[in-house]
Each structure stands twice: as structure tokens, then as C-alpha cells.
């Protein structure tokens, strides 16, 4: 039943599993959809879809599958009144329920429209008019294999219409990367260990039993240190003018990292296009708020993980020439490339995240310096996949 919906969903990228589909079939068999399309819509959605980001895909697949089905013609209040004084529901023998296969929705709608025009009074139990408990295709509590239910348990809104509203369009995940996804990626960066420092505050049960046994039953509690993440992270962000188009993306990464509470230490620093003899404490990159790069290297041990964020696009001179820095007050006796190498060789784990998509690296203006920088740092694009790959890289030494 409805297999086209199943494949429709898979075409829309929702990987519905067979078990979920069977659950839906079980629910239908138990009559949980109440034989109405809108209930079926909600039922199928709650069983098959497991994330609000896929609600939109569901709506699209549902529309495709049930497009032809529309709400029945306008039913007037008068007709509903005829149906209020109902006969008891007509119970039909299983054997009598011959499916009437040669009906068409078009014809049924035409006939209903005709009846609505002709019928002028209540009618119950017959085979033609709109009423209750009969075998006419119109009304409720009766039986007709191809009927239109009017009234009875209500059909408030058409499911097709609800699906067509596509109220969940905003939740689609393929459109934008969210902070949360970055956060999830960053969470993978952890290295649990029972570090030497910290209090012994976790009961070591096995050792306790062992020690108590050795003391012939005298209770002896043994405490151990908790396992903690010992990853320390440094993030250096390019805050130059060429980064402006990527500011939103970078701020998402910034927020995600900031929210992650599982790092032992997390520090942000900033630079302008390339690293020279100073590194800045804030994105405004003013000299009065900076630290010397040598101090920086002394301050942070080589076991810090270093993430460089930047487009690596600059004039070749900025990277290769002494005194090549963009800022007029800079006095770098050594070219930027040397400083970059110094940084990369100090930290055992480092990566470069580039907000420019990888496919353009060879074609953009800064392709020459991108090439040079990626020889120093392993470079990844700043997307979810890129970040995941970078995190993987950060977990192992070069």
C-alpha cells in the first residue's frame, strides 16, 4: 500500500527504513489513521520522519503521491443537518464487501454535485441519496466501497492542502550550515584520559572489592580520577578585508567552538592575512592589543591543537618578502612564510580551514598563496565535511 510514497520519500533523500515502513503498515492495520487522509498524513509523518529538517521533504513526497486527491465539493450546513439524525452504523458482512473497482473520482464528484442540487430533505438508509447508514456513496456510517464520507468523524483540513502549505520549509538542513552542526563536529575532538591532575572522586569498584578482600572484609574504599577530555584548542582567525564575505560562516564556527564546553582550554586569536611577529587579541587587529608571536609560542605548549581559519589569499609579497606585511607599521624582518612554518612546526597538531570552497582553490585570485600555505598546513574547506576531515586530522600527529 502507498509504496509510491515510500519511494517518493527515498527520492527526496529521506532514508526510510523497512522497519519504519512496517510500523506504519501495522498502525494502518489497527485503524490508527481513522480512514482519513489528514490523519494518515500526521500518522505517516510521525512514524517515518525523525527530524524536523525532513518535514519539508515529507511534504513534497506526500504532495507528489496524493496530488490528485482534493477535498469533496462544498457541503452545506443543511446537508450536515440531514446527517445528524443518523441510523445506527450499518454493519456489513465481510463477504458482502465486494470491492467496487470501476469507479472514478471524477464521476463520484459529479454525482455528489448532482445529488446536492436535487436532494431537498433528510434521507436515511437508502441507496441513492445523501444520508446515513445506507449504501449510497454519500454520507456516513454506511457502506459503499467507493464513497465520500460527509460529516461523522470530521475531516477538518485536507491533508493535501496541509502538505501543500509546506510550513516546515525553513527547517531544511541542506540550505545552510548551522552552528549546531559545527558544534557536533567539534564534539568529536576529544581525547579522554585519566590525567595525573585532578581530584580522585570516582569510586573504583573493582579495586574496592579487591582491597576489601585483601583486608579480610574490612571495608576499604578506593577512589580513582575521572576521565576528562584533555584537548586544548587554539583558533586563529583571519580578520582581513578579503574575509568579509565569509564573516557569517566564520562567526558560526566561532559560536560553535565557544559553546563547546568539553575542551580543557580554548583560546581565540586573530591575524591579518598572514602571521608575523605579533598576533592580535581581538578582530580589530590593533597593535596595542596584541602579543608577540614568540611569547605566544612560549605560552602555548606544543600539545595545543591549532586551527587556522582564513582564505589564505593575499599578495605574494605578503607571504614571501621581508617587510611585506600589509600594515604600514609592521616591521617583519622575516617573510610571513617563515613565521607560518615556525607556527606549524611548534604545534604537533594543526590544520587550516579555508572558507573558499575547495573546487575554487585552483581558480581564485589567491590561488598562488593558497598553494603555498597548504604546503605548510594541511588545508580543508570550511564546510561540515571539511571540518569533520580536519578534526580527524587533528586527532593524530602529523
Amino acid at each position, binding site marked *: 500500500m502507498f509504496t509510491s510514497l515510500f519511494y517518493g520519500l527515498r527520492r527526496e533523500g529521506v532514508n526510510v*527504513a523497512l*522497519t*519504519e515502513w512496517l*510500523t506504519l503498515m*501495522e*498502525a494502518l492495520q*489497527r*485503524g*490508527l489513521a*481513522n480512514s482519513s487522509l489528514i*490523519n494518515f498524513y*500526521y*500518522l505517516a*509523518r*510521525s*512514524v517515518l*520522519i*525523525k*527530524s*524536523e529538517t525532513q*518535514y519539508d521533504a515529507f511534504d513534497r513526497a506526500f504532495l507528489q503521491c496524493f496530488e490528485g486527491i482534493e477535498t469533496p465539493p462544498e457541503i452545506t450546513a443543511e446537508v450536515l443537518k440531514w446527517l445528524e439524525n443518523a441510523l445506527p452504523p450499518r454493519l456489513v458482512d465481510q463477504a458482502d464487501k465486494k470491492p467496487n473497482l470501476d469507479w472514478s473520482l471524477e464521476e463520484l464528484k459529479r454525482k455528489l454535485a448532482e445529488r446536492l442540487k436535487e436532494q431537498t430533505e433528510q434521507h436515511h438508509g437508502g441507496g441513492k441519496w445523501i444520508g446515513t447508514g445506507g449504501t449510497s456513496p454519500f454520507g456516513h456510517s454506511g457502506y459503499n466501497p467507493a464513497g465520500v464520507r460527509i460529516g461523522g468523524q470530521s475531516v*477538518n483540513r485536507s491533508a493535501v492542502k496541509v502538505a501543500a502549505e509546506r*510550513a*516546515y520549509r525553513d527547517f531544511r538542513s541542506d540550505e545552510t550550515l548551522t552552528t*549546531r552542526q559545527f558544534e*557536533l563536529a567539534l*564534539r568529536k575532538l576529544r581525547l579522554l584520559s585519566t590525567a595525573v591532575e585532578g581530584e580522585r572522586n570516582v*569510586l573504583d*569498584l573493582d579495586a*574496592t*572489592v579487591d582491597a*576489601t578482600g585483601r583486608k579480610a*572484609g*574490612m*571495608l576499604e*574504599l578506593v577512589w580513582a580520577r575521572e576521565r576528562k577530555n584533555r584537548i586544548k584548542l587554539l583558533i586563529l582567525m583571519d580578520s582581513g578585508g578579503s574575509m568579509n564575505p565569509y*564573516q557569517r560562516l*566564520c*562567526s558560526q564556527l*566561532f*559560536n560553535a567552538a*565557544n559553546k563547546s564546553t568539553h575542551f580543557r582550554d580554548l583560546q581565540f586569536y586573530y591575524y591579518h592575512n598572514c602571521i608575523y611577529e605579533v598576533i592580535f587579541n*581581538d*578582530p*580589530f587587529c590593533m597593535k596595542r592589543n596584541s602579543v608577540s608571536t614568540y611569547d605566544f609560542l612560549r605560552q602555548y605548549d606544543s600539545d595545543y591543537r591549532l586551527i587556522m581559519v582564513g582564505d589564505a589569499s593575499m599578495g605574494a609579497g605578503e607571504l614571501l618578502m621581508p617587510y611585506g606585511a600589509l600594515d604600514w607599521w609592521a616591521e617583519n624582518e622575516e617573510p610571513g612564510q617563515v613565521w607560518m612554518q615556525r607556527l606549524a612546526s611548534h604545534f604537533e597538531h594543526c590544520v587550516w580551514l579555508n572558507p573558499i570552497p575547495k573546487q575554487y582553490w585552483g581558480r581564485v585570485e589567491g590561488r598562488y598563496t593558497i598553494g603555498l600555505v597548504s604546503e605548510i598546513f594541511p588545508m580543508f574547506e570550511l564546510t561540515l565535511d571539511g571540518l569533520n576531515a580536519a578534526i580527524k586530522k587533528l586527532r593524530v600527529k602529523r
Partner: protein
Amino acid sequence: MNNNTAYQGSDKYIASQELISAVNVAAALNRPLLIKGEPGTGKTMLALSVADNLNMQLLIWNIKSTTKAQDGLYVYDTVQRLYDSQFGEGDVRDIKQYIKLGKLGEAFISDERVVLLIDEIDKADIEFPNDLLWELDQMSFYIPETGETITARHRPIVAITSNAEKELPDAFLRRCIFHYIAFPDEEMMRQIINVHYPNLQKELVRAAVNAFYSIRNLPGLQKKPSTSELLDWVQALAVGGIDPRIIEKEIPLPGVLLKKDNDMALWQRKHGGEAGDARTAGKKNITSYWRS
């Protein structure tokens, strides 16, 4: 569907038709119901309402970052047993008395069908939901210490809430019935306020709801105010005896709705006028640059 076991929403909790249907499907199919939604949309309250409406006992298992799946099943108090053996108290040979059932275990052995709320499952470790797969599927677990198998006498209605702080594993999701509680629209919001504070002036509620949505729709807000904050605010407005006519214009007591410095500053900028608040203007936060 059997009518006397079907959830219909309760007087204190406005549930949409979709949500009611999801609850009933989960109850009928004996599957856990996974509820997601913005904070303050009433995820936890739903379980209360279900228990209330169906007249069942409610068990709440609050998940914390240190919670292990095992805690929900049972805890074996080894230290107590060692202690007792040292001083010769209790019957040390009877392991059973050192086994304490957790919330899930309690729900299984209950004489009647209960509602079990597993609150904020995403707080726990990433592996947590996977560790509960079998127990939630089969509604039984084995205690190796006593050789006992605890099987559910009546499969509980399990409601699980998540704030999407961590992604849940696919295998776990496949077994759940899922519902996302969308943020209520203005009409529904008025109903919700009405349920909580039935005696408020209509005019006050209307003005407060309008003002609330105008704040929520400010672009760039870091933490959007939620239903529960609106409820607090409405109450504060009513208690303070504030004239409904000035609510939309001046937005009194904004601190109830906006909890972050940056948001408050943003609102004051948009709101023009009294932007010269020295407290926020003086503090130039670095992070605001990146968060803009």
C-alpha cells in the same frame, strides 16, 4: 482506537491535533514518543498532561550529563554490601536487597500502565540512547547479579524529550514515533495564556502577545524568548498593573523576555530612544563582532 485509552489533551495543556495523534499512535504501537522543539514549547509538560488525562502515574527520569543507561535499569550497591558484611548487618547472601531499580525498572514492575518521561535525553553521553535500545524495544532487561529478568507487566507509555544538543543515533530514531512541536502562532498563544491565567484583561493579553512576537521576530536575536518567558512576562505585567495601551509602545520589564546583554542592546538599538543605557553601551564585547 479504544476511546478510554486515547489521549485528548487536557484543560491545562493546549495540544494540537497533530500532537494528540502522535501521542495516541505511540501509545497504541507501544513505541517511545520522541518530542523535539524549541525550549519552552511545553515538551515536558506534555508528559504531565498525558498522565493527567489518562489517569496514569507519571515517572520522571531526569537525564544529566553524567547519567548512564544502567542507572535507569538498576543499581547494585556493592559498597553497602561490603559494609554490611564487615559489621554483620543484613543478610549479605541475599543480593536482591542490594539491587535498587531505576526509573525504567520501576515503570516495568508497576502494577498499572504508567507514563515514563525520559527528560532531555540529549544531555547524556552520545552513546546513551544506543544503550537503551534493547530495553525500550523488548521492555525487559536481565540482572546478572541475581539471575532475574525484569519484564514489563504493562508496557509503559514512554515520552522522550530532546533539545537537539546532540544528534541521536539512527537505530534509536527508527524505533521512535517523532513529533516536532512547532512554535505556537499568535492565536494559539492567546489560548495558552488563557489556560494559565483565565482572568486577565483581553486587551492586556492581545497587546502582550503582539509585543512578544515583534521582539521574537527581531533578526539577529541570540536567544529568542519562549512561551514560558511570555507567561512570566504577562504575569509580571498584570501584577505590576501596567496599562495595556503602553505595552506595545514601551515594552516594560524587557528583562523578563531578553536574557542576554547583546540581545538587550540589540533591542534597545531597534527601539531607538533610550539607547543610551550606560551599562550595555560601555561594555564593548569582542564576541559581538563575530556574532553580528
